């Protein structure tokens, strides 16, 4: 189950429930056939059948260059805004990066992946040579040990679980399910913060993420939430 705990759903409904609405506000053409992420339309949503996390908070893109190991590591270690490696933002929160005001957006995807290209395109933001920050909160009913975070991204990405860097994949690459996989880790009982930074050079950009259990099967039995005050 994926939950949206602290977003005012009626207001969301008024906002037409889609990033496409933001696209219209930004003067972009509406394209109903593209896999744009949508604004969460309900407080709860079912977990993807294959365990993919479908609800995220994503910050509007920041300019960044380079996909080599060292360039990506330098980019994600750079200070863009305060508490960037610890913050669990709310939908609509804003940060200032290089003099530009950027907004966090809560998004859902109906797919296994989150399409960052259309996320940015619909907002009238650049899609090339950019860095996206994304955060979600995995809430476990009990401690889950021996699990792995398994991700795919276009292009390079770095991932943290509860503040510890667990995956880095580099180079110009496409999203492949379970491309980067962490070493075994333990999800604690309660909220666990999953954070990533995805850097795209050009063209399509997206990511997917799920956890694998000790048998390397998709992990189930947890919920996902975004924007709850208790995690701040």
């Amino acid at each position, binding site marked *: 189950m994926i939950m949206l705990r602290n977003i005012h759903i009626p207001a969301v409904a008024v906002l037409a429930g889609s990033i496409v609405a933001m696209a219209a506000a930004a003067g972009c053409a509406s394209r109903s056939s593209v896999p744009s992420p949508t604004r969460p339309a309900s407080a709860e949503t079912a977990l993807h059948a294959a365990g993919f996390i479908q609800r995220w908070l994503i910050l509007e893109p920041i300019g960044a260059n380079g996909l080599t190991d060292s360039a990506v590591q330098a980019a994600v270690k750079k200070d863009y805004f305060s508490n960037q490696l610890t913050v669990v933002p709310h939908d609509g929160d804003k940060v200032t990066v290089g003099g530009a005001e950027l907004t966090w957006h809560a998004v859902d995807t109906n797919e296994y992946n989150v399409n960052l290209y259309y996320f940015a395109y619909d907002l009238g933001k650049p899609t090339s040579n950019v860095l996206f920050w994304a955060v979600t909160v995995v809430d476990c009913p009990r401690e889950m040990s021996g699990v792995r975070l398994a991700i795919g991204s276009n292009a390079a990405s770095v991932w943290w679980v509860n503040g510890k860097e667990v995956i880095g994949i580099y180079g110009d690459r496409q999203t492949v399910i379970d491309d980067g996989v962490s*070493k075994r880790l333990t999800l604690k009982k309660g909220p666990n913060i999953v954070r990533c930074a995805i850097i795209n050079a050009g063209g399509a950009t997206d990511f997917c993420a799920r956890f694998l259990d000790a048998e390397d099967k998709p992990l189930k039995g947890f919920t996902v939430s975004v924007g709850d005050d208790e995690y701040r």
Partner: protein
Amino acid sequence: MNPILHAKSLQLAGPIILMVEFVAIWASPASALDGQVQIHDPSTIMQCNGKFYTYGTGGSSLVSDDGWTWRRGTRPSRGGMAPDVIHIGDRYFQYMGSNPGGQPHGAINMIWSKSLDPNSPDYKWEDGGVVASSDGVEFCNAIDPGALLDPTDGKLWLVYGSYFGYIRLVQLDPKTGKRIDPNDKPVDIAINCEAAILIYRDGWYYLLATHGSCCRGADSGYNIRVGRARKVTGPFLDHTGTDMLEGGGKLFLGSGGRVVGAGHFGLIDEGDGVQKFSLHWEADLDRGGASVLDIRPLLWRDGWPVAGENFKEGTYAIESVRTGTALELAVEGVPVGGRRSRGARGSAPGGPGAGGGRGGMFAGQGGVIPPQDVAQVSTNWPAGNIDSRMANYMCQAQQKWTVTPVANAGGYPGSPYFKITIAGTDRTLAVGEDGELVALPAFTGGHEQLWRLDQLADGAWRIMPKFASTARESLVLSAVGSSFATLAKFDPAGDRQRWLFKTP
């Protein structure tokens, strides 16, 4: 292993001075095991109390603690020709031939023991008598027995015969190892071969038998051939449809490399889909042409058994069958020939506008680009432990692994343990304290740095550490993701733990 001396360079300088530099190169231990392996007509290898046993013609026997290094064993109570051994219940039945009146007057005798370990209180060979014979006139020479316990119905079968006429089949009692009915007429299933044995797989019975001449050292044309049948009684046809009763037989293994004359197949089923086979070579050219024991992987292709080869040392790209990505050090790679920007598309080489060194982004940089020098690109690698990962293979130094047998580190059936290092360096693949893969700065000989490489039925390889510090069961290298390998329990039905060693 035998050191081979190679003259690396021969220089003449001033007055005739010969400067010859000899470099010792250890021959690949691709065949014929280690230790005392001289034997002829070995029986199917049995395991008992953790040791491996085989018996040969004349009462000889070999024993091994690990299946790689062998030594002389204890003679059983009865010697004979070309014995075979099968383990059923709490008994090891050993069958061996004799020619009391000269060939083709033959007999198959049986002895049994509850243990093959002479130090066990259960070690005592009991005489079981004659289970099959030939009278010297009939068209059969009753020696060279081979036993099969049919996994489909629990029936015990024995084939026997040697060149003179038929290979015959009789049914035995799996409780006693003796003939169920000595008056039952044996079934003829092949002709003009010897060292026959049956195995079963996926609805087929396979009859493996040895053709060609034996006992002439390197002049022996011994070769193992196979036919298959839906019934244990035949007909056993080869791949061309020729009945083995009419001389048919698909070649399974002949001579090659430094060994001549393959004979006396014996199945070694290690479970989890890993199968090997024992045999003897009539002549091992690296051992003075002696007849020796060997163990090789057993592969299967299109419903036929195929003889694999034990791992050969060398430098490889290690590619996951599942993901197609290759194992590498988790360091920033440098493109071969240096990094270059993508740039704008120009004319294709040879196309309009090409020439004179121009040609746009597809024209390359000119000249021959040499292989990447690991000494150059490794200067930025961390000095200590480095994680491993997987990536598309791009001919880079951190992706090339040299696999080398390790002397005096033990082994497993068919091979010694190997170390796996980045080519041109001492960076060694190992199991870290957290149970994950890691590359150590240098090989120090620990069990966590030793690797067992078993070829699987489809020809791919299983890579297993000799020791995993956090493992409670046998773990193997597993491609859990496209860019990440770990250690996980072997799943013979999957492809996560299947690897290819490719020429880099």
